[in-house]
């Protein structure tokens, strides 16, 4: 029985390890996901993302480690969990000649208490495609149908693998809005992605996975903030770069085509502006950038690569 203390924890993974023959796909992953969270699992291809969520979804048996999903063990309670966990798999297609409404009604019949197929068609804006065959759907429509099928059983947890891969930017944004809307209804979501923008937009917390290990777990904003800020501007008259470099907050200064680019820690913008005021220089075309998840990702993965002497692990799609 689920006690009140752990009722808010939907997924708990401890020291998960999965090997494919000689290759270590997941190498000691631990994470905890709370009810109502959108939790992102990020990483380059072959990082072990899909393998990790396949273990959480009960599709794959780990070599070692413990997993608890909704208070149950996926290895021994797969049947019950399939009723309560909705899964959207990377690269899974439906029969070509099945109609959209037919597919939704079919999947609805698999569950104890399904959503009304018509309601889902409306929610995912597939109404006008309800009588279309799967083969005639666009990539975005197929993706929306796939999400609808993952949600039709009223799951408590949805695992969405590569949600927007292959979608055009507009469909991608629409899909994000949809996921936000679903989360507001209390669903917990695990989102596997390699799009930083997607994770930044949607996720409450993100785990950065690389070579089967978690490099960091934090909110997208905090992950970027650790890397500091960037400021760039043109100055007239020209500024003495040495004075900038002397500031303790500054890490790097570069001049490119008359434009000065400065990188530094979280307080670098204030320090540079202070200097400019003292020197009575008016900066032109100033641009300030917060480091993003993208930067965090690049920084952490290249750091990790430098540590590693072994060749990268390969992921089976």
């Amino acid at each position, binding site marked *: 029985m689920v006690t009140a203390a752990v009722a808010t924890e939907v997924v708990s993974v401890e020291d998960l390890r999965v090997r494919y023959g000689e290759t270590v796909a997941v190498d000691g992953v631990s994470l905890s996901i709370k009810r109502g969270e959108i939790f992102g699992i990020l990483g380059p291809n072959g990082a072990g993302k899909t393998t990790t969520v396949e273990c959480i979804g009960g*599709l*794959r048996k780990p070599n070692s480690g413990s997993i608890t999903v909704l208070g149950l063990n996926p290895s021994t309670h797969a049947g019950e969990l399939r009723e309560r966990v909705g899964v959207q*798999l990377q690269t899974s*297609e439906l029969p070509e000649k099945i109609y959209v409404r037919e597919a939704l009604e079919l999947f609805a*019949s*698999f569950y104890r208490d399904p959503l009304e197929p018509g309601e889902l068609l409306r929610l995912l804006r597939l109404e006008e495609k309800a009588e279309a065959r799967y083969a005639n759907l666009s990539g975005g429509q197929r993706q929306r149908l796939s999400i609808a*099928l993952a949600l039709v059983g009223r799951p408590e947890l949805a695992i969405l693998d590569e949600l927007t891969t292959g979608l055009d930017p507009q469909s991608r944004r629409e899909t994000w809005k949809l996921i936000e809307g679903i989360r507001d209804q209390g669903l917990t979501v695990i989102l596997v992605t390699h799009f930083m923008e997607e994770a930044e937009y949607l996720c409450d917390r993100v785990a950065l996975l690389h070579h089967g290990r978690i490099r960091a777990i934090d909110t997208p904003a905090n992950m970027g903030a650790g890397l500091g800020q960037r400021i760039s501007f043109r100055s007239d008259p020209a500024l003495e770069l040495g004075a900038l470099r002397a500031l303790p907050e500054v890490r790097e200064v570069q001049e490119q085509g008359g434009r000065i680019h400065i990188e530094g820690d979280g307080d670098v913008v204030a320090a540079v502006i202070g200097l400019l005021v003292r020197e009575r220089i008016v900066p032109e075309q100033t641009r300030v950038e917060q480091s993003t998840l993208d930067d965090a990702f690049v920084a952490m993965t290249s750091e990790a690569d430098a540590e590693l002497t072994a060749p990268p692990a390969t992921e089976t799609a």
Partner: protein
Amino acid sequence: MSALATPTSGKPPQQRRGGFQSLIITELRLLLREPMILFWALIFPLGLLVVLGSSTSSKPQHSFGGLRFIVVYTPVLMTFTLTLLSMSAMPATLASYRDKGYLKRLSTTPVGAWRLLAAQLVLVLGLSSCLVILIMLVSHFAYNVPLPSEFGGFVLAILLTMTAMASLGMLIASIAPSQRVAGAIGSILFFPLMFFAGLWVPQQSMGPTLRTISQYTPLGAAVPSITNSDFGSWPGTTHLIVLAAYTLVLMRVAIRLFRWDR
């Protein structure tokens, strides 16, 4: 995959049956959307029956073992239609479902992917039975082919033929990586199987060696079993054992080799 084998616990059986029934109905609808399969499994054998029944001699032929041509040919057409469904249509469908990731997708739902296999088997056996009965009735009422007077023997022979061919179909589905490969294996096997059934040369006209080989192929054992029961005798024991052995061996290998995922 272990997840597929795990029993579903604590759910009302009513719901599970609901999912299984919808799977069968949906698979039937999908099959009816394949005009090529409908042509080869329904229209072609019935058309052939009508053409041959109307154009061939109504007198018994010495080269056909003293039987009329259409009497010899009706069991061949029965095996033709059930072989097409279980050995060509079913494995191509299942291989494409695996290739597309549909089997894996189903394994994440409460019905599980194995129920799709069961639905396909139910569908193929049910449709084959309907087509066999249709051929039997048309050949009887239009061309006076006797109805099987050894009915129990006929049912047993047809059932064993269907399970042997369905097992062969499952084996193809378990080793073929894609719909194209499954289709190719099906076509390559279709010609020798139908040859030994007597599609081109009736078994009664085959030489002794060819005829002996024929008795040990599944359809070569099936056709004389059906012909026997048309005239009131029980199918030959060897023929029944041959069909049962193909069913058991092929199904065992198929179960061992079947993969749910690419």
